[in-house]
């Protein structure tokens, strides 16, 4: 009676078209209790208890195979929730040796989820995979191929490579398809060991089954990315395949939301974009089919828009063609004007690509772009900043950089902060309109530089150092060539304080490191300070200098006053003593001697 009730509940729970789950009441209870757990701590407790009980039971001798299968599934569940179940790995490996398909599949599934390709247990599995690749049952072969995609690494490739290549000619298309993907994976892991087999990919491109052909596009894309010129002869084939797909000559099964094999179309468009880039002749073959797709695309569905977007990407990377560029610009307009955020995002991205070919395209969309900038959606904002970065000219650099700095101060993501910071600096470097702007930029940037300092302390990569370098060079160079300007700048004590602060901060961070950039930085600053010595000496005589300014002067003179040998130490000390007499009240100043 109990058993019937259990079976009844199990059927009710999991049988909707899926077949009998074959799991015990215990597992269902476990999953239910996890579902009802009110906190992560409670969930953790339940799972840890489960893991303990499994650890005991799985080690028992003579566990029936089906029961073992369920234990393994429960371990997969535990690992998925973030706990360690490594004691069960060996049992999963043993299960792959089983003859029954159902148990073998579970074993393979568990093993691909538990292990990575550098695990010690892989050696035990390679033999099984080898055997299963030769099996008569195509489902077993498929399971073995799926496992091979995850678990075979550079060392074990030679063990399975010959069989996988043989399977490329297997009668079942599912097997051929997976063999292609497996071979692709091997190529990614170790290009050298598979390089002599690349012609196989070309052959599979002409396979009867569209699924296999579609799968072959993945490795071909990688190969073409690495070496475009060897594959230029395939342009015509790809174009003809794309044409057939667009004309709906593939089986209906590949239709998706009224579009003919859109995923395959997208892959082909990506490949053609690579092949046609910079090549007038190759691009010539592509224009017609691209025009057709633009016309036929359903812009009312997501997938239609995805294909349209891919077309725009293709158009912007191949040799320019006026009609296609117009069509692309029109589609971009539609994206930008739409209500959906996703489409606006794609529109901004497409605009960024089209600008590279024709900068005027951005003009008519300025309002839409500004709307996106003001949008509360962070993703859209960031994308728009990327666009602005591409759109910057000397006329609008100040506005754009100001905006970027404002945004940078407001966000919390450190990774993105430094990215924006380096962009700002690059733009300023490239387009800075005047020295005055430099100074202001540096002043406002000091605040941002302080935030960046925190990032520098934690991060450690090259980009940040370059940013600091550029920033300091800007400030140092932006000091003004003419003396008059220099004088007034000297008097702006705020600016000098910053300079000092920045210098000390840099010393603090890069102090003992032998980093070349830091050295260059210091050198630049030293040179600047040397030049300032003269001016400082002149100013010292004047009364009523702000004390902070005085501190700076004293420090600089102390460090660099005698550096170029023009003034003797005694002279400088004499001057400084005069100053101390005049400003007796300030102790800090004295420290700087």
């Amino acid at each position, binding site marked *: 009676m109990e058993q019937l009730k259990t079976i009844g509940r199990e059927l009710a729970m999991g049988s909707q078209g899926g077949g009998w789950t074959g799991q015990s009441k215990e597992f269902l209870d476990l999953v239910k209790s996890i579902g009802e757990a009110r906190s992560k701590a409670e969930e953790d407790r339940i799972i840890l208890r489960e893991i303990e009980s499994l650890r005991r039971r799985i080690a028992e001798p003579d566990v029936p195979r089906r029961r073992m299968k369920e234990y393994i599934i429960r371990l997969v569940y535990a690992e998925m929730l973030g706990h360690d179940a490594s004691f069960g790995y060996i049992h999963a490996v043993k299960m792959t040796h089983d003859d*029954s398909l159902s148990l073998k599949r579970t074993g393979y599934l568990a093993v691909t989820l538990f292990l990575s390709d550098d695990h010690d247990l892989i050696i035990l599995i390679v033999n099984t995979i080898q055997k299963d690749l030769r099996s008569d049952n195509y489902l077993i072969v498929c399971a073995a191929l799926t496992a091979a995609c995850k678990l075979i690494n550079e060392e074990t490739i030679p063990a399975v490579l010959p069989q996988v290549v043989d399977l490329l000619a297997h009668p079942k298309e599912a097997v051929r398809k997976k063999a292609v993907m497996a071979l692709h994976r091997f190529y990614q892991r170790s290009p050298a060991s598979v390089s002599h087999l690349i012609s196989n990919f070309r052959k599979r491109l002409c396979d009867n089954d569209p699924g296999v052909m579609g799968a072959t596009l993945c490795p071909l894309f990688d190969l073409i990315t690495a070496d475009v010129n060897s594959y230029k002869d395939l342009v015509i084939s790809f174009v003809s395949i794309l044409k057939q797909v667009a004309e709906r000559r593939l089986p209906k099964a590949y239709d998706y939301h009224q579009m003919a094999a859109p995923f395959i179309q997208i892959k082909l468009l990506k490949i053609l974009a690579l092949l046609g880039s910079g090549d007038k002749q190759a691009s010539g073959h592509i224009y017609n089919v691209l025009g057709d797709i633009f016309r036929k695309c359903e812009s009312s569905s997501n997938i239609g828009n995805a294909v349209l977007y891919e077309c725009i990407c293709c158009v912007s990377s191949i040799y320019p063609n006026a009609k296609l560029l117009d069509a692309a610009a029109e589609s971009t307009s539609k994206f930008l004007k739409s209500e959906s955020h996703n489409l606006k995002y794609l529109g901004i991205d497409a605009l960024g690509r089209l600008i590279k070919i024709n900068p005027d395209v951005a003009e008519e969309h300025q309002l839409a772009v500004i709307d996106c900038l003001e949008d509360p959606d962070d993703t859209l904002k960031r994308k728009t900043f990327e666009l602005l970065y591409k759109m910057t000219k000397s006329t609008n650099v100040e506005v754009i950089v100001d905006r970027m700095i404002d945004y940078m101060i407001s966000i919390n993501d450190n990774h993105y902060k430094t990215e924006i910071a380096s962009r700002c600096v690059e733009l300023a470097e490239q387009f800075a309109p005047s020295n005055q702007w430099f100074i202001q930029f540096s002043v406002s940037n000091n605040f941002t530089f302080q935030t960046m300092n925190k990032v520098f302390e934690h991060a450690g990569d090259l980009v940040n150092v370059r940013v600091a370098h550029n920033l300091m060079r800007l400030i140092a160079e932006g000091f003004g060539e003419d003396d008059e300007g220099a004088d007034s700048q000297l008097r702006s004590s705020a600016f000098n304080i910053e300079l000092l602060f920045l210098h000390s901060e840099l010393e603090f961070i890069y102090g003992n490191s032998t980093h070349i950039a830091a050295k260059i930085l210091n050198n630049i600053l030293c040179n600047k300070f040397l030049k300032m010595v003269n001016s400082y000496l002149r100013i010292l005589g004047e009364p009523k200098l702000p004390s902070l300014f005085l501190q700076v002067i004293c420090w600089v003179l102390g460090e660099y006053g005698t550096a170029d040998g023009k003034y003797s130490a005694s002279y400088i000390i004499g001057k400084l003593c005069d100053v101390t007499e005049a400003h007796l009240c300030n102790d800090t100043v004295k420290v700087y001697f």
Partner: protein
Amino acid sequence: MVRLYPNRCQLVGSAFISGFLISLVRSFIIDYYLFCSFQIHFVILISRQGKVRLTKWYSPYQQKERSTVIRELSGLILTRGPKLCNFVEWKGFKVVYRRHDSIILVILNLYASLYFCICIDPDDNELEILEIIHHFVEILDRYFGSVCELDLIFNFHKAYYILDEILIAGELQESSKKTVARLIAAQVNVTERCVSLAF
């Protein structure tokens, strides 16, 4: 010479060098796996409450990193409003997500939605990935009959089998629903035969 910060200098200097070296090595390792420029790095299904329903990792992530990833992404995605983009930028990658409410639960007014999240490289076609998610959901729907969160909770290993037919090694393997359904059915038939034999 006035040394403003004598001690911290040396400390931070050496930390800087080691941190720099570590990140250099790490980026080298990651570059190795990003050899293919368009790849899916992982697929995560989480509930509205942030509970994990399914995870599949196509790039190397240690167990601890996985928990961090899930926590960070849950915080990022579950708080987004309904009208915003379905894409977020995260640590130099993009994550495309889609919320799924089963028809049955909506009718019963039960608020239990699933978020399907896929992590891709920044240059990939985001809308296409959104549609791949939809493709996966439609296949699950076909298999379970209007899939809801409960189905995935109790049959997560079946969902894995289905996912393995659609995506392999981080790439789209099969775009025909019919082919996937046929393969899964063939496998289930054999399984059922085994099970009935066991009794």
